[in-house]
């Protein structure tokens, strides 16, 4: 374990620039995205290998770990949120122990619960998700505060044999949760729409 490299940080990158770096490398990976990153990611880089985590905050990385353990030949990326991961911190231990070999866990650390009104994350300014992942046993865990350094390091991170966590210090988007009008007919939940497509793509 190379451990976490964490430095004090006040500067932040835009969510858009962080996603751009990832989108440039999008190929055959299964990607699980959640929260404010979900819609812009799917717009710019969505494929039939995208899974979504909506309505079960904190579950993105566990869902992706299952795919990774079923199909170790397929790279899996998680585009997680800081508030989401905080709800399931134990998943860091599970992932480190399971040690999927091609597993990139990106955490968008904007420091707030963006969609619910930008309330601050508990311990914001002190907590380090890279530090937590490194202590849990991830093969590599690194914090980035600008998109250029993340972009420059990403190819090498994708070659690491074992789970990697990239904590990206991002700006809040101000994107409020959109409440849709009640449907007239029972809708099919988005996860039920997407996972069979991913399963077919992997079959």
């Amino acid at each position: 374990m190379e451990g976490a490299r964490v430095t004090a940080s006040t500067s932040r990158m835009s969510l858009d620039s962080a996603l751009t770096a990832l989108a440039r490398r999008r190929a055959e990976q299964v990607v699980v995205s959640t929260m404010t990153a979900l819609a812009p990611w799917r717009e710019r880089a969505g494929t039939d290998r995208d899974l979504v985590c909506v309505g079960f905050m904190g579950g993105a990385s566990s869902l992706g770990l299952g795919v990774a353990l079923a199909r170790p030949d397929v790279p899996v990326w998680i585009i997680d949120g800081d508030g989401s991961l905080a709800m399931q911190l134990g998943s860091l231990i599970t992932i480190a122990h399971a040690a999927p070999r091609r597993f990139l866990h990106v955490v968008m650390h904007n420091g707030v619960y963006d969609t619910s009104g930008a309330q601050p994350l508990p311990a914001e300014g002190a907590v380090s998700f890279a530090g937590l992942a490194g202590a849990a046993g991830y093969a590599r865990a690194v914090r980035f505060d600008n998109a250029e350094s993340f972009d420059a390091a990403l190819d090498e991170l994708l070659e690491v044999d074992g789970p990697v966590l990239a904590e990206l210090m991002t700006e809040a988007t101000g994107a409020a949760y959109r409440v849709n009008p009640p449907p007239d007919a029972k809708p099919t939940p988005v996860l039920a729409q997407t996972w069979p497509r991913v399963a077919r793509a992997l079959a």
Partner: protein
Amino acid sequence: MPLAESIPAPALLDALRAAGVTDVVAVPDTHQRTLIELLQADPDIRFIQTTTEDEAIALAAGLVVGGRRPLVQIQHAGMYASVNNLRGVAIDGGFPLVLLIGLLGRDPRKPPRENFDSMVRYAEPLLDALEVPHVLLDGPADLPRLAEAARLAAARSGPVAVFVGMTTA
């Protein structure tokens, strides 16, 4: 009729095989301790341990996406803790998952919902509220219900619970 005092873990493991289970995703359960010991040493069924039960449900769903046939093994207290992922992943996602749930502390002389222990008493009513089918293993003779539960989960594209009403031995 006297009640069986336990369910033999080797027979339960055979029932998992008969149900086509490839992976068991679990949080340790005192009630099913002997089965866990067998699973940890089993060369065919992969045993994956998580830190929480909602993690176990999401991880098992991911295994399904990747073509595996997992089973989630937890305790009743963990079932209560996992309700949001049971709803948001297993039910809303339409995942054919079997949950093997230990009823630790159950008085076997009574049906679960007549037990004094709240963890036992509310287990079946909770799943009724969530419209999740469930069956009870009250002894070795009930073990074929596990394969039936797996078939039902596949047919309804959703979770089915199997309560382990006796300690495994």
